[in-house]
């Protein structure tokens, strides 16, 4: 289940990567300055790593949703099973759309804006809805 946890970034506990990769160089310390072409590229590749973290999360969501759809359709295609399957698929779709919007945003500028609380809440609620579907299937 946890196959999507890469060793490189985003361990599950704590702020494990708060400032690593950023300490080596202060902004503007490179000779080019980069005044005319926007801020210098972050040597810690933080936007890229955040983008990959969204990708991993989307992958984990896919695995969970596939397991959910499998469980829902396990006992034949009953109306209840189809409903739960559709709910799982919409949760998955929600996560995908959130991940897509955020990865695009992260790639659009050198200094990306912070994540909006609504997006974070929506992603968590998709996860919770998936769990509720699972509970409905188990009981």
């Amino acid at each position, binding site marked *: *289940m*946890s196959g*999507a*946890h890469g060793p490189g*970034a*985003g*361990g*599950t*506990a*704590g*702020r*494990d*990567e*708060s*400032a690593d990769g*950023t300490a080596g160089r202060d902004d503007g310390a490179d000779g080019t300055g980069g005044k005319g072409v926007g801020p210098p590229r*972050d040597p*810690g590749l*933080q*936007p890229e*790593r*955040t983008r990959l*973290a*969204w990708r*991993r*999360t989307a992958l*984990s*969501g896919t*695995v*969970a949703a596939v*397991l*959910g759809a*499998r*469980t829902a359709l*396990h006992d034949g295609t009953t109306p209840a099973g189809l409903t739960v399957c559709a709910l799982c698929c919409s949760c998955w779709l929600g996560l995908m759309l959130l991940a897509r919007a955020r990865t695009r945003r992260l790639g659009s500028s050198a*200094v*990306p*804006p*912070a*994540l*909006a*609380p*609504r997006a*974070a*809440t929506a*992603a*968590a609620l998709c*996860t*919770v809805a*998936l*769990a*509720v579907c*699972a*509970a409905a*299937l*188990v*009981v």
Partner: protein
Amino acid sequence: MRVVRNVRLWFAPEAVRAEGSTPDYRFSLANERTFLAWLRTALALIGGGFAVDQFLPDLPRPWRAGLALALLAAGVVCALRAVDHWVRCERAMRRGEDLPASRFPAVLSLVIAVVAVTMVVVVLAGWAG
């Protein structure tokens, strides 16, 4: 309750941005990645719940449902707490305060350990019986 007060912030970007100053964007991104890592943990727990239900068909039903529901509940708590912690970290960074301490990782580890030990015992008992 603190969580209930924070729920208001979950939906209100302007309330979070109203106070303090914007931190270095790299810190915000690190906070976001930590949030995503917790969300993956929650998704993995939920996947584990599905897996217990699907791939242990020989287990007596009460055990199977109990283990699956324990994993699913852990997933739900983990996801909700991920948002809560993210909002609180974001606010603490804006205000220049210390990041919030948390005993949630310890609690979650204990819950997972209990579920894992139960699963081992149940599977072994299934073999013996």
